[in-house]
């Protein structure tokens, strides 16, 4: 404990800035020229379908992922490869907060709902009136303490709409439902104790009359869980922990994991040193998807705590694990641990996209999961069998994949141990891709993802569990992997496990992705470029630099004027921006923060832009809408 080594303090200097391709202290070039299809790769998977029903109405966006299958695909096609270059800003909205904006706005009934990071304010914008004025503002007043407990910025990943209610999680561990018409609180349920370090950042997911929520705090030694609440009352119906006894994890007779490693009694305690599972994390801060035919939900759990693996010998089930559970009872059907005894904080919380894919001449019901550990998995979602596993991003922690046991083979040289500085481990804790959700198009059968190209030097330092403080122990420095680019936007073939094309980005790509029937896919970069790409060729068709970095999720919707709009929040923050000294990820010209929601249309046309608007009836109207007093304090 005495010979603690410290990374020498990094002084800002241009020479440390990034990439070999760009000379130090010059502006990076646009990456557009780097867009090129990979040789010999087919831009299409024939026979692929998406298991997305029931969809949100085509012109609306009612949940973060737009559908049960988590495709983030829209059937709107007014904006297409021919005209997307004419995309211009139609209108904008600033919500007054500066932390990372990771949520997608919702559009329901000609109203747009925008949620802010802490203090988790919810705005309703009236899309029937020129200028899209605020209809109501809901201020939930979460506890300020929560700000200091959230590892990766005071973010929220958004709101879900169901039964006339907007449901979301507050950073201080309350789930709230707000009446969509009035902006009044319908119910509020306390789900945890923020003083332990537990927070909530994920977007709720609604299945029927149940809303599913989970916790955050993989760095704080929390006891991770997912829970179902009644949509109408907020009453908790069931809760399943990620570690502990089979009863606590909701494992019963129906539980049939595919691999031997995950079979046995009470593995949620026996794969840990005594009692360590109680603070073993496995928080549920990512995405949930649902197959209505199988009546199963799918989601992943976070890394184990502490982040010093030598303190917790064993597989540490059920952390860094994908679960399939009965949507009604929450009972586990199968589980698959992506990274056993997770030593690098890889988690398994990334989205599971439900697709039906032709594999070896047979159509299989699969889930596609691009994990933080850099493996792209195609998994049979009925049985939990891994059908395909191949790296989609640069990695060196694993030397291969054992298909028999469904386990990545670990390079022992990349295993961290206390007080030993381990250099060049790839990917770093934030993974080959983080939570930022990818999209899939049934027209191409491909998955489109913002990925990372980052490595780290890491020194483990043993951590003690002190309630209120982190249970962490990972001292690290992150920097670009070979190639020098930090980000890349890729098209991934989930049948072959191969990248079809990629667009390298100098800065991180941490935004959600939107795919549309116009065969255009949209993504953003951490330094603020918003781009539209041809879904087949990977050619960049349009770009615009926004006022802040983009880590939000693009959506599309139809206005009252039947025009197709694209919306995206700019407002950088999140996991990669919390540390002040990470100049390798955020050089001198990285955006300082800020927030604007941008709404685009062809030529920027809308009801509230262009000539004549100032005299429109809507604009001179001074009457308050009926619901004008929805403001809560």
């Amino acid at each position, binding site marked *: 404990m005495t010979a603690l080594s410290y990374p020498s303090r990094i002084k800002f200097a241009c020479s440390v800035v990034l990439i070999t391709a760009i000379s130090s202290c010059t502006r990076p070039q646009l990456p557009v020229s780097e867009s090129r299809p990979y040789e010999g790769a087919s831009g299409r998977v024939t026979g692929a379908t998406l298991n997305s029903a029931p969809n949100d109405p085509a012109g609306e966006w009612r949940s973060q992922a737009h559908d049960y299958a988590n495709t983030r695909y829209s059937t709107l096609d007014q904006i297409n490869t021919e005209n997307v270059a004419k995309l211009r800003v139609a209108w904008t909205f600033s919500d007054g907060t500066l932390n990372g904006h990771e949520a997608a706005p919702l559009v329901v009934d000609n109203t747009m709902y925008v949620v802010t990071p802490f203090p988790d304010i919810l705005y309703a914008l009236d899309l029937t009136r020129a200028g899209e004025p605020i209809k109501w503002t809901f201020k939930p007043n979460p506890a300020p303490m929560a700000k200091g407990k959230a590892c990766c910025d005071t973010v929220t990943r958004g709101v879900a709409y169901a039964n006339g209610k907007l449901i979301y999680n507050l950073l201080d561990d309350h789930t709230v439902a707000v009446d969509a018409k009035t902006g009044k609180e319908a119910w509020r349920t306390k789900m945890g104790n923020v003083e332990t370090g537990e927070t909530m950042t994920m977007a709720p997911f609604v299945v029927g009359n149940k809303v599913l929520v989970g916790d955050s705090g993989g760095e704080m030694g929390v006891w991770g869980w997912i829970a179902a609440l009644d949509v109408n009352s907020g009453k908790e119906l069931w809760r399943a922990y990620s570690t502990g006894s089979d009863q606590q994890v909701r494992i019963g007779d129906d539980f049939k994991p595919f691999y031997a490693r995950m079979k046995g009694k009470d593995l949620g305690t026996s794969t840990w040193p005594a009692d360590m599972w109680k603070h073993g994390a496995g928080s549920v801060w990512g995405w949930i998807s649902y197959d209505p035919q199988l009546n199963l939900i799918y989601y992943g759990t976070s890394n184990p705590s502490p982040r010093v693996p030598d303190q917790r010998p064993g597989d540490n089930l059920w952390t860094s694990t994908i679960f399939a559970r009965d949507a009604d009872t929450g009972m586990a059907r199968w589980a698959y641990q992506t990274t056993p005894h997770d030593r690098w904080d890889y988690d398994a919380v990334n989205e599971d996209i439900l697709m039906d894919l032709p594999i070896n001449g047979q159509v299989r019901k699969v889930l596609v999961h691009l994990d933080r550990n850099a493996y792209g998995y195609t998994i049979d979602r009925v049985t939990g069998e891994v059908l395909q596993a191949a790296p989609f991003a640069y990695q060196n922690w694993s030397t291969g994949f054992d298909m028999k046991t469904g386990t990545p083979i670990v390079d022992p040289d990349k295993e961290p141990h206390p007080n030993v500085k381990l250099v060049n481990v790839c990917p770093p804790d934030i993974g080959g891709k983080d939570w930022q959700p990818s999209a899939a198009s049934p027209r191409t059968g491909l998955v489109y993802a913002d990925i990372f190209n980052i490595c780290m030097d890491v020194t483990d330092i043993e951590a003690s569990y*002190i309630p209120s403080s982190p249970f962490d122990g990972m001292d690290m420095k992150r920097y670009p992997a070979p190639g020098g680019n930090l980000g890349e936007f890729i098209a991934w073939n989930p049948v072959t496990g191969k990248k079809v094309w990629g667009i390298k980005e100098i800065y991180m790509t941490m935004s959600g992705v939107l795919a549309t029937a116009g065969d255009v896919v949209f993504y953003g970069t951490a330094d603020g470029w918003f781009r539209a790409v041809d879904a087949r060729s990977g050619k960049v068709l349009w770009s615009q630099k926004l006022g802040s970095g983009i880590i939000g999720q693009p959506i599309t919707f139809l206005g009252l004027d039947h025009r197709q709009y694209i919306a995206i929040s700019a407002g950088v923050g999140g996991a990669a921006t919390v540390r002040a*000294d990470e100049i390798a990820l955020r050089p001198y010209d990285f955006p300082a923060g800020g927030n604007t929601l941008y709404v685009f249309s062809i030529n920027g046309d809308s009801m509230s832009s262009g000539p004549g608007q100032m005299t429109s009836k809507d604009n001179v109207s001074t009457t308050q809408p009926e619901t004008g007093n929805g403001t809560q304090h």
Partner: protein
Amino acid sequence: MNLRPIHSAIGIAALALLSALGGCKHSQGGSTTTRTASFPSDDLIGAVPLGQVAGEPARVVTALSIDDPYHDNRQAIQQGKQLYISMNCAGCHAYNGKGNMGPDLTDAEWRYGGLPIQIYETIRDGRPQGMPAWGATLPPDEIWKLVAYIQSLGGTVSVSDYEHARQGDQPGEQVAPEAQADAQFAPTTPIFPASIPDTTQKPSSSPTPAKPGNRKP
């Protein structure tokens, strides 16, 4: 507060931790540094307000100038660094102090003041946006060692600047004559309205509390 240094699967680490934490409870007189140092009294520390002193803009809070008894004690700084890690400060403020969940402790930006006594108060009492209060867990000498370690990171305010720091002044800066602290027109005494009409009908009790200064009839 109940400290539970559980979960160290490595025996040596667990032992080291236990002794470190055990030391928290009754560690006075352990090391030489502890024996020789004398700490500012609770009364003196209590005299340091978090905010400006209302009604007395010119009042100088001399307690602000109290230095950390360990500020130049290398051994104590080293111990402060170890506490910074073992108490999980590093988890929130980063191992190099550059901040993540909690703010950067190496820069010149201080939400609650960068003077040693102010940092002491921050650590002892906690702060509302997620900084735990360590006063129940750590005895004064260990908090002072943490302060000394934070001072060694270079961003804190020197006690010789205790007057300046409050108004964002920089040492050696130029000052306009009108902005001199002792300028004659600087308000030094509060002025309250001569009387506030008593709208309540009750004859004896005044609804407004007694105020200091010149308002009393």
